[in-house]
């Protein structure tokens, strides 16, 4: 089962790359010209995201460097300990929605320090693997099409992150 899933994940991309043009050629689509035509849009889309991402990452980077993040974690630790959440994984839960690279580094550190098969190592892996970086996804997806008013999207994203965090701890309690 696991091996099959792995194989699927390894083969999916090469399959996409070869089957899409093959099918299109079969339907008499000029594949190369169509590719170039569509690819043009990719550049402007990526460039369009720059102001959004620079704005967001500047604020996040300042927030972490100021030590405000650490204070928040220290304040929340006792509360979470009572809910059965090991204190070591709490910063990961707070970092996860705001920075993908930051939380990945933190999760890797936890896995390294406690061992990948320890309880904390497993919780860290599960938290990191089960959700995406909400602020990044919001910035990139809405930035790409010029949406300025995200309405309730951020609230929904942060709510599901909170649920996902507790679900990850719960899943590890349940399964190990």
């Amino acid at each position, binding site marked *: 089962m696991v091996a099959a899933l792995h194989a699927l994940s390894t083969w999916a991309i090469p399959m996409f790359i070869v089957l899409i043009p093959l099918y299109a050629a079969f339907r008499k689509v000029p594949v190369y010209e169509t590719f170039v035509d569509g690819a043009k849009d990719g550049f402007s889309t*990526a460039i369009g995201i720059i102001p959004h991402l620079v704005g967001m990452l500047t604020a996040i980077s300042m927030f972490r460097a100021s030590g405000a993040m650490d204070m928040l974690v220290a304040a929340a630790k006792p509360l979470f300990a009572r809910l059965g959440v090991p204190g070591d994984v709490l910063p990961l839960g707070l970092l996860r929605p705001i920075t993908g690279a930051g939380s990945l580094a933190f999760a890797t550190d936890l896995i390294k320090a406690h061992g990948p098969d320890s309880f904390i190592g497993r919780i860290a892996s599960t938290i990191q693997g089960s959700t995406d970086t909400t602020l990044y996804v919001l910035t990139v997806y809405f930035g790409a099409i010029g949406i*300025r008013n995200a309405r309730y999207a951020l609230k929904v994203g942060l709510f599901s992150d909170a649920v996902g965090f507790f679900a990850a701890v719960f899943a590890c309690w349940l399964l190990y």
Partner: protein
Amino acid sequence: MVNWIWLGMIVFSVAFAVATGRVDQVTEAAFSGAQTGVTVCFGLISILVFWMGLMRIAEVSGLVLKLSRLLAPVVRWLFPDVPKDHPALGFILSNMSANLLGLGNAATPMGIRAMQELQKLNPHPETATPAMCTLLALNTASITLIPTTLIAIRMNFGSASPADIIAPTLLATAISTGAAIIADRWYRRRSGDPPAALPRPTETAGVAPPKGA
């Protein structure tokens, strides 16, 4: 809400830095953060250019339409205000399947293509539509079958069974995705958008563009 979080992070960081004597570090962090933003976008260029080229082929050849018809009932329940057979549905499906397989590189361009298609249905181009919010909710919760990166990291640190986390990840991601869908539905209903409102009549007169945005 984004405005407040952004302002809050900046003001709080500077105030905290002044109180703890970390002003230098915070100033430096501001510019290194900006630099990271540009670096990440430059990294996205090659990925977006490649996948958008490939996806244009998929679109022109009719594959996207086929895909959107395949799983139409599920997607139509999630996105009731997207017209039947609209290309957005095909891209939404490709985006969801790429997420399931843990193919982050492919999922992002597909999600952006879906957003671009949804934007064509948007009567107010600077305000997110309910369908966009739903797509975003699905992507932030990002239902995952195979957490590829984490399995690789665990392998790296000598785990006895690196793929062991597939089960708890699947459970956690299913719960958080469920929560995202429920919350999205709740807000969608509360925001009072009619389920199929394209284009929205009469309302336009009262909607002012966001000030100073």
